[in-house]
């Protein structure tokens, strides 16, 4: 589904990704872990097409296409979804309107009919249950005045509605209390299917107790320095990242 080869990316003059390799197949959940400043969030944002980053080398194939050639909206229409670490507030636009517009744009791009607001409400009702939410949230402006937990939950609601083929969750656990974490993780788990895949970007092992990964990768210094099974996350929890950063230092 996704093949990242020697991906390099920079913000301004600063190279942040220095040759990332990662392969994700349908049905898999990958965790990308790493210390602060390792490039985890950059990787997530580069995959979604954030204009602040310049890809300076390497390739990304997604469902047989050159992902890096696509505009951000075309990536979304092709089934890629990024749950933002810091979801953006859009005062003045209701959550319901925004989400229906996104849903319809993705349908249009796939040659499907747009749905009207009544049909969309029916769909929304089921999806709201997934994140244990009331419909009230939909009449509020997008993320405006939402608590940190509400913003993250809103990202997962969007994911549930847009049903991405590849979802990237960027630090979705940050700022969540334990109840919100449980709800968000349960929502994500219900969205797991054999034909989709999830990349979970996280600093802490905590989220991985709830969203259990098939593979764990450690990103340090802009490269994946170690990959393993879910037990690697526990080892990182116990030992921290320093021993791996030392490896990076020695290797380069």
């Amino acid at each position, binding site marked *: 589904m996704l093949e990242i080869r020697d991906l390099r990316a920079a913000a301004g003059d600063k190279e942040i990704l220095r040759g990332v390799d990662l392969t994700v197949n349908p049905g898999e959940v990958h965790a990308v872990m790493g210390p602060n400043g390792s490039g985890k969030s950059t990787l997530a944002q580069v995959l*979604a*097409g954030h204009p602040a980053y310049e890809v300076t080398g390497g390739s990304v194939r997604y469902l047989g296409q050159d992902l890096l050639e696509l505009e*951000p909206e075309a*990536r*979304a229409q092709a089934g890629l*979804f990024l749950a933002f670490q810091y979801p*953006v507030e*859009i005062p003045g636009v209701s959550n319901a309107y*925004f989400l229906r517009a996104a849903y319809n744009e993705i349908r249009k791009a796939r040659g499907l009919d747009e749905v009207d607001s009544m049909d969309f409400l029916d769909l929304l009702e089921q999806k709201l249950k997934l994140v244990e939410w009331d419909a009230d949230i939909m009449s509020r402006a997008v993320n405006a005045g939402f608590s940190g937990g509400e913003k993250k939950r809103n990202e997962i609601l969007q994911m549930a509605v847009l049903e991405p083929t590849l979802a990237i969750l960027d630090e979705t656990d940050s700022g969540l209390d334990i109840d919100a974490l449980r709800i968000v993780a349960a929502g994500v788990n219900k969205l797991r299917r054999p034909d989709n895949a999830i990349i979970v970007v996280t600093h802490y092992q905590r989220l991985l107790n709830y969203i259990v990964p098939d593979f764990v990768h450690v990103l340090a210094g802009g490269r994946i320095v170690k990959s393993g099974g879910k037990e690697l996350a526990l080892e990182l929890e116990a030992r921290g990242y320093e021993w791996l950063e030392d490896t990076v230092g020695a290797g380069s």
Partner: protein
Amino acid sequence: MTDTFFQEFEAMAGTATVEGPEWLDPIRRAAMERFSATGFPSGRDEEWRFTPLAPLVGASWRPTAGGSLPGPERLAPFLFGHPEWTTLVFVNGVFADTIGDSAGLPPGVTVSGLAEALRSDGSLLRAHLTRHAPVGGSPFTALNTAFLAEGGVVQVEAGVDLAAPVHFLFVTTAEAAGTVTHPRNLIVVERGARASVIESYVTLAPDGVYWTNPVTEVAVGAGAWVEHTRIQRESERAFHVGLTHVDQQRDSHYRSFSLAMGGALARHNLHVRLNDENVETLMYGLYLTRGEQVVDNHTAIYHDQPNCRSWEVYKGILDGRSRAVFNGKVFVRPEAQKTDAKQTNRNLLLSDAARIDTKPQLEIFADDVKCTHGATVGRLDEVARFYARSRGLPAALADRLLTYAFAAEVVDEVALAPVREELDRLVLDRLGGL
């Protein structure tokens, strides 16, 4: 041009074509003399520095001959989906008809054209007309006062709740080409009364070149609640120079929303005087400019007494080679302690060639007050654009959505739902839909 107005004035006075009470004659004459003495403002006048008046001053303007009432289907788009609301329709500045269910107005509410009110010479006019908007304030007010004859008058007596809004609708047609009109409106909401009044300037001649020079006086009685919506949708080749002067009494609430999207050159001055304690004033504005338009908003809030609150937010969306001006003054007199005033002007530039001159001014002479102001000029937020695009919205749609959102923040402050929805639609139309 100044001389032409004087000759016209003399001709009008000589033939007594303007009816009205005798007490008004010297006021009109003094206003004419004032205008003759000052003439139009020059570019050296600080109040008019950024307002290019040359095309207006250089042209010659005929008096209006009125016009026939457009059919119901042509007026329908301007009625907020509520044809039953009492609407005074003026065609090219001359009263044409009252539409809506004016029989359904509550007792204690009087709505009429100014010409009719002048003929009956009630005590209302004597107490209020020309008492709020000083002719010395602006040459345009002087000119309007010299020629005052037509406009809307609404009086809501003490304690009366005007359930449905009253609408003054000024429509120009193709026959208005080359003419000037001087609408004069009076809104009096007495002690403890409640009213919503809408003032619209619209056109059926989208390319019409004409000049509208309106003045509106608003008297808000003690404990009264007033929502005043002003919609300026003139032709984009027209001139519009308007002034609204509001006087508020103790414990009153006045909220204004001003939309400016028409005019080659459009200027509006909103002056609100807080004459007594515990007054609340909300002023919201939105200007949408494109092409070569110049849209200028000047506001002034006079905190004359203690314990009052004013809250002002004006937003602008500028495209093309258009220009906008915002000048907001807040005066706090020495006795106006515990004043709480906040003024904000935010501008969104959609093109490199658009330009905004913004100048918030606080003049504070009291020491125990909370006054803040701020102005911003910017473009669409890149992170918000990316967020919307990452959800599948094409870049152009994301831009329109975020632009709409920027405007919606002020439009949402309009209390009256049908008016709010219509303003919303006007914004969406201008942006090319969503």
